[in-house]
């Protein structure tokens, strides 16, 4: 989550974006669908010159439509390959609106971000090889709740992060600037000078705010320039920088800026008049620079209530780890997977016609068929390409259902801490193996009175390492809560069309019941019922008994869960991962 801009700023952001859509990258609009968002979009539309397209990219747009490919209709009509331009090429010079950007798949995101970076798209598809210059700005509509957020790679490239949640319709003012004003502002944009001290000040401020990405200062610079152009300033002024800092840097800030105390005129002034001009100039310059820093930081600080930053820091790690657009993967999975070549056959219900391969199959026969058709007197309305039934080729996909291995780790006091280290090691080893098999791994830890999803299903070793490193130990054993969480996640995974496998590492000594109450009997009873839930759902599971002396307790749980029981009193990480792998397969 990022702290974002209020409504009046949203309008300003829309205008500045319209002045330089390509340079500023775009606007991230975090808001539910509704009239407020519509107005904001309308304001952007109104500010853009009419000739510039504003196109909407629906969530599940396929690669062929996004990047371009073979135009089937035209190809068949013309009898030669005809290129269909993709959305990215069509939006050249305008603005691309990404609907439900928070759920966009990473593949789509990469296509868009790389087009933004290179200002061109490269298409190598369907026998076509094209390079097209594309320059566009992006408006990403983010309807995410809580932790759901647009991918960091895209967010990083958009200058403005606007949050319209909580803005009522009445407050939403309409943009008042029209296209012409924007056009003249654009003309002024190129002539605007920006000094080095400006760049230095912006970079210094960005560092002071804990912003790592170097795109942020660049974007700030461009926004400041756009603001100066819009305000008809001859050069970039302090107001422009302050505005740009508030719009671009404030929502990205990771630490609260420390304003330097205004320095007192330092000590005794140099004794006589022998100070050469150069030195004075130097100091003057330094003063100006410092002043600029201060202006920027003050502007950012004004835009940030302190509690926002606290919340932000707390959630920073988590929101990054949250994965994106899983729904996209699910939707496509019917026709996805590893292409396993093409096959001669009928394009029936579920089979996908491979147009390009069909055309290729038909191609060599064209002269022959034309001659034949001419001999049989087939009129002048013959199609350009004669395709017979035996030309049809259908794509085959090898669809292996993805496996998601859910680790449920007992991090309580009773599971001694060194066991936790082994569990961590095993998870990492398994993850490396899972990557090869394109499987996913999730991690749930339970301790104290709750179970927590530490790692949502992922394939990234980097993420897994981070969340594992932060796994603390100690406290009670809320086994029931852990199993419930595992069940919920397994259910979710299954609904996505993946196969869940639960690996539970515990000593089975439950002592916290579902409602958080202490006491062994109730806790065990709850855990039993949670375990039965898993068995009823038919989830493949393994229970690794981590207690130093494996006992009947954990074994009973395993029976109730329908899990394989693996007593591993002295296993190290490698042995553990081997055992789990063997029993999962």
């Amino acid at each position, binding site marked *: 989550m990022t702290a974002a801009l209020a409504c009046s700023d949203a309008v300003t952001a829309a205008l500045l974006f319209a002045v330089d859509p390509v340079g500023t990258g775009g606007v991230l609009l975090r808001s539910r669908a509704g009239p407020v968002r519509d107005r904001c979009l309308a304001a952007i539309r109104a500010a853009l010159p009419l000739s510039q397209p504003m196109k909407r990219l629906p969530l599940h747009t396929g690669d062929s439509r996004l990047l371009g490919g073979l135009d089937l209709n035209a190809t068949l009509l013309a009898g030669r390959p005809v290129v269909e331009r993709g959305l990215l090429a069509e939006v050249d010079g305008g603005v691309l609106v990404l609907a439900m950007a928070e759920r966009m798949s990473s593949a789509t995101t990469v296509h868009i971000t790389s087009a933004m970076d290179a200002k061109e798209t490269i298409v190598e598809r*369907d026998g076509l090889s094209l390079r097209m210059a594309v320059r566009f700005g992006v408006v990403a509509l983010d309807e995410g709740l809580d932790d759901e957020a647009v991918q960091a790679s895209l967010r990083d490239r958009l200058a403005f992060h606007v949050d319209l949640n909580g803005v009522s319709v009445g407050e939403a003012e309409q943009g008042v600037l029209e296209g012409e004003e924007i056009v003249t502002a654009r003309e002024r944009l190129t002539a605007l000078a920006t000094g080095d001290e400006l760049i230095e000040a912006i970079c210094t401020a960005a560092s002071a705010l804990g912003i790592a990405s170097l795109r942020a200062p660049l974007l700030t610079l461009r926004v400041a320039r756009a603001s100066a152009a819009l305000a008809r300033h001859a050069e970039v002024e302090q107001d422009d920088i302050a505005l740009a800092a508030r719009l671009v840097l404030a929502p990205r800030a990771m630490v609260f800026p420390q304003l330097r105390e205004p320095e007192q005129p330092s000590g005794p002034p140099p004794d006589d008049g022998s100070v050469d001009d150069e030195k004075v100039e130097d100091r003057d310059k330094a003063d100006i620079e410092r002043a600029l820093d201060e202006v920027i930081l003050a502007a950012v600080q004004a835009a940030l209530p302190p509690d926002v930053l606290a919340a932000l820091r707390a959630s920073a790690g988590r929101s990054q780890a949250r994965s994106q657009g899983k729904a996209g993967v699910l939707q496509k999975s019917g026709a996805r997977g590893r292409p396993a070549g093409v096959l001669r056959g009928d394009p029936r219900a579920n089979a996908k016609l491979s147009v390009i391969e069909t055309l290729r199959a038909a191609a060599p026969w064209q002269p022959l068929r034309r001659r034949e058709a001419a001999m049989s007197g087939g009129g002048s309305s013959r199609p350009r390409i004669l395709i017979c039934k035996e030309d049809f080729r259908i794509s085959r996909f090898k669809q292996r259902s993805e496996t998601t291995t859910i680790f449920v780790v007992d991090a309580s006091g009773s599971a001694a801490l060194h066991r936790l280290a082994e569990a961590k090691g095993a998870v990492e080893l398994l993850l490396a193996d899972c990557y090869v098999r394109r499987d996913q791994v999730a991690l749930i830890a339970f301790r104290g009175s709750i179970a927590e999803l530490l790692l949502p299903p992922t394939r990234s070793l980097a993420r897994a390492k981070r969340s594992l490193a932060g796994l603390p130990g100690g406290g009670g054993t809320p086994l029931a809560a852990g199993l419930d969480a595992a069940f919920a996640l397994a259910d979710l995974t299954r609904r996505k069309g993946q196969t869940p496998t639960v690996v539970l590492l515990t000593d089975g000594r439950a002592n916290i019941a579902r409602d958080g109450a202490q006491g062994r009997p109730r806790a065990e009873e709850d855990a039993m019922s949670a375990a039965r839930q898993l068995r009823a759902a038919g989830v493949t599971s393994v229970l690794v008994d981590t207690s130093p002396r494996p006992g009947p307790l954990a074994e009973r749980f395993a029976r109730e869960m329908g899990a394989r029981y693996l007593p591993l009193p002295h296993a190290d990480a490698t042995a553990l991962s081997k055992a789990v792998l063997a029993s999962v397969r």
Partner: protein
Amino acid sequence: MATAFPFSAIVGQDEMKLALLIAAVDPKVGGVLAFGDRGSGKSTAVRALAALLPRMKVVAGCRYNCDPGTKAEFCDDCRAWAEKGALKTVQIPVPVVDLPLGATEDRVVGALDLERALARGEKAFEPGLLARAHRGFLYIDEANLLEDHLVDLLLDVAASGENVVEREGLSIRHPARFVLVGTGNPEEGELRPQLLDRFGMSVEVKTPDDLPSRIEVVRRRDAFERDGAAFTEAWAKEETKLRKKITAARERLASIVVSDAALERAARLCMTLGTDGLRGELTLMRAARALAALENAKTVADDHLRRIAPPALRHRLRRNPLDDAGSKVRVDRAVAEVFG
């Protein structure tokens, strides 16, 4: 594509720049993988390298960039031409071919030329990206997101140096040896180990965190965006110098002496780290030789090995999940142990 950002104007990122230069001096080192932060100039560096490379000689009209000097590796076309008479040669820029995500298999390996097939009913082969990249660079941005079936294709061709196409009644084989360059962000997923192994060197890229270089990055980037032509012009001299350095290093490469002692140290280093296979030693040796050539040395010294060890070996370590230290630290540790 607009003018590329000049290679010499890239601030910092010394390890990545060095690795790319080494790959330019000796393609046999086997490519570069740059993994790291967003917006740290990975793609910029690769594209900048393209503008920096000296031109190369090819057979005129050859679709596979055949080298007129090596008759043994000619494609079928060139062989036929060579029998008829002398081959014409031309100088072309070294290809740096993009393998974009979302590319389809037919474009990567090549396929039946649809246009000619449909219009004239001819069976002709249209070479793909692999043919275009022969003797040059194949660049994959976001390599960790590349579809699996394309990775499989790449692995096969990268290992054999030859692209064999058997589809649509075509049976074609042509040389396809290229330097694989990949970039990516580890946050978005790991690279498949098999593909990881194909890269000769692997570098970790970080956004600079000291203020002066951050300011310099933004300043240069801004200057470039405002007036690309003037900026490129201002750096042209540096670029020429660097280009000459690469050319000179290539010529020197064959004469660099790798002593037995240096080989032994390389082997000891790999043993200490427990790298799989012999590719580690080979890469280490080749990269150190290229580095020596770049720096106008006559023999490979310990210092060369020491500096090149992290990029050449860090991705070949066995993962040890309980050792939280980064792979760079582990290589450094081993270097300290071997070199004392």
